[in-house]
């Protein structure tokens, strides 16, 4: 069979070669990027989220969120008298494709701002593009920190806005003495656990009371690890699990926890990547009492939140559609961008970037968040316990808003660094040497 399919190269017709080569050239030449005429009466907003592939599970909702926010804004008359127009692309969970699509959005579609990315690697992949082409990226997901870039605004939580308060809560209110740091083996859990390990040690926790465990993406067989946690937890000290396990692996993890009978009253699990959306796929009854730390929960009762949920469910025509923390991060970020644009009366990225620090926008939990010079924002931190209906019950919150640290104070390499795009115009200002450019030498 194969023999018929292939031919000796030399037997190829010469014209065939020419035609094929011509085809190659045509393929290159007739690109989709015949420079689009940017309509003058709209402001284009890029939406860079995977709609297919493995990350679609998380990112699709954020695409809908931005479309929803744009829709709401247009109902109010748009921005600067112009309607907003969303340009949606699908980077298909493929990291290099993120860079390619970002380039396309900025160069071809001439968008004024891009809302996008979920994973750290996708953000890292588009970073050089945003720097080179000087545009704005709003990034809505909690991440590992250690970054402050001029073109990026981080509206998700930095580690000090999620991990550290959660650990504080467990130490103070639950008297936890022994810690399991369980995570998926990638940068966010690695960094978060590094920070937490340093933080716990500074609080006098001994090395033997910390167990660190990493699993591959999409790990589905948790028997051994859950048994290990159980064993670790039976040393006579109150034990808790701090989970940075990535989305997909959580369902089998919690199912195994429930089945092996680890109750929240014995060994509570506090998670940083499990929100309303993830819980929608699990029967939460055996998980009641396990915790999550976020800057927003759907169950928080404020007028703004109730309106947001109602409008969102009406927009998606799905009365059961849940909301979650990254959505709120977009809500804040989007409104900040709108305010900044209206302040400088321009969508020019340079002007908007300079205008953004200091801009305040209400969050959905009753406070007002502020964009900081390091391009992170102030947020409240909530600890929620899982309820039987797949929602969270807030059991603790920080007294005020917590300012996001771009650089962790717990890590040796970044202790002296700060990001300051207002005064110092530098993302990695060293406060010891008073120089821009990291630790220097």
């Amino acid at each position, binding site marked *: 069979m194969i*023999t*018929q399919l*292939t*031919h*000796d190269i030399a037997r190829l017709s010469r014209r065939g070669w020419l035609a094929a080569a011509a085809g190659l050239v045509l393929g290159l030449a007739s690109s989709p990027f015949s420079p689009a005429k940017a309509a003058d009466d709209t402001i284009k907003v890029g939406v860079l989220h995977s709609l297919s592939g493995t990350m679609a599970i998380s990112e699709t909702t954020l695409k809908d969120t931005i479309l929803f926010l744009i829709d709401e804004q247009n109902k109010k008359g748009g921005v600067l008298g112009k309607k907003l127009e969303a340009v949606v692309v699908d980077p298909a969970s493929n990291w290099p494709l993120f860079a390619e699509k970002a380039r396309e959005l900025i160069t071809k579609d001439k968008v004024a701002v891009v809302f996008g990315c979920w994973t750290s690697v996708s953000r890292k992949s588009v970073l050089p593009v945003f720097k080179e082409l000087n545009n704005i990226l709003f990034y809505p997901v909690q991440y590992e920190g250690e970054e402050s870039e001029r073109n990026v605004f981080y509206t998700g939580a930095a580690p000090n806005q999620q991990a550290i308060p959660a650990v504080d809560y467990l130490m103070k209110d639950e008297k936890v003495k022994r810690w399991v740091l369980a995570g998926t083996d990638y940068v966010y859990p690695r960094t978060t656990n590094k920070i937490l390990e340093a933080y716990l040690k500074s609080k006098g926790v001994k090395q033997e009371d910390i167990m660190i465990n990493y699993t591959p993406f999409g790990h589905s067989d948790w028997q051994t690890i859950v048994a290990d946690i159980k064993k670790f937890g039976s040393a006579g000290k109150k034990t808790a699990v701090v989970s940075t396990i990535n989305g997909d692996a959580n369902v089998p993890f919690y199912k195994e926890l429930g089945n092996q009978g680890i109750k929240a009253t014995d060994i509570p699990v506090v998670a940083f990547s499990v929100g309303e959306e993830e819980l929608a796929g699990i029967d939460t009854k055996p998980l009641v009492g396990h915790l999550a730390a976020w800057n927003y929960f759907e169950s928080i009762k404020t007028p703004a939140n109730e309106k947001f949920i109602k409008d969102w469910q009406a927009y998606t025509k799905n009365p059961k559609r849940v909301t979650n923390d990254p959505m709120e991060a977009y809500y804040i970020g989007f409104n900040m961008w709108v305010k900044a644009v209206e302040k400088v009366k321009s969508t020019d990225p340079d002007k908007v970037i300079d205008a953004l620090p200091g801009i305040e926008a209400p969050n959905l939990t009753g406070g007002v968040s502020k964009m900081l010079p390091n391009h992170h924002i102030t947020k409240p931190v909530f600890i929620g316990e899982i309820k039987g209906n797949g929602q969270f019950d807030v059991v603790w919150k920080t007294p005020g808003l917590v300012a996001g640290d771009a650089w962790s104070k717990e890590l040796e390499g970044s202790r002296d660094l700060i990001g300051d795009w207002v005064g110092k115009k530098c993302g990695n200002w060293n406060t010891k040497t008073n120089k821009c450019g990291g630790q220097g030498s």
Partner: protein
Amino acid sequence: MNVMDTRATSAMLYLDGVHVSFDGFHAINNLSLALEPGEMRAIIGPNGAGKTTMMDIITGKTKPDEGTVLFDGVTDLTRLDETRIAELGIGRKFQKPTVFESQTVQDNLLLALNVDHSVRGTLFWRESRAETERIQKVLETIRLTDARNRLAGSLSHGQKQWLEIGMLLAQDPKLLLVDEPVAGMTDVETHQTAELLKEINKDHTIMVVEHDMTFVRELGVKVTCLHEGTVLAEGSIDQVSSNERVVEVYLGR
């Protein structure tokens, strides 16, 4: 490779006490056989008698469980792989004609030529007059001169059989193993094949496996009848075909 100190036998091919079994089925059972240099031997036997398996053993495709297979009196073939055995000078024609169907007749012969077979050799190979002449000669012998530029896959069944014999000639081995060369041939072609084999036999030792008794008779050589993996009878065609057991298990009454 494994070369013994002295020639253990004068035979070109010497099988002694060979056993092989697949999952408990004894395909070859205490088989012993000797082929003298320059001899042509016809092997007959019913289906499943172990004819093809025997060829597999000689060419290194199957390793026997026990027994000795000596080539040229000195080389133990059971230790070598197909390539090494082919290099020693044993050529094989398969039961089902196996030629390189997507290449031309000429290229098939070119590939079979007994020249440098290393990767380097073939990469930097260039056509030489001597090779062209060899190919020309083989093409004439197998009567495919006019079809030299046709794809082997487009040949008729009989032509493919011949091409494969031609490839054996180009390979110029000391010993030719020919498995059912006339299957699917017309009477005329069968006759021509017999003539061809006799011609080849002038400088080569040949072992022919064949069902066609007319063809075997026409070859007029010593015949060995295999049954259940062992030699049932050996001798001239008349002796064998009159053997009681052979008649019973193979030829039928």
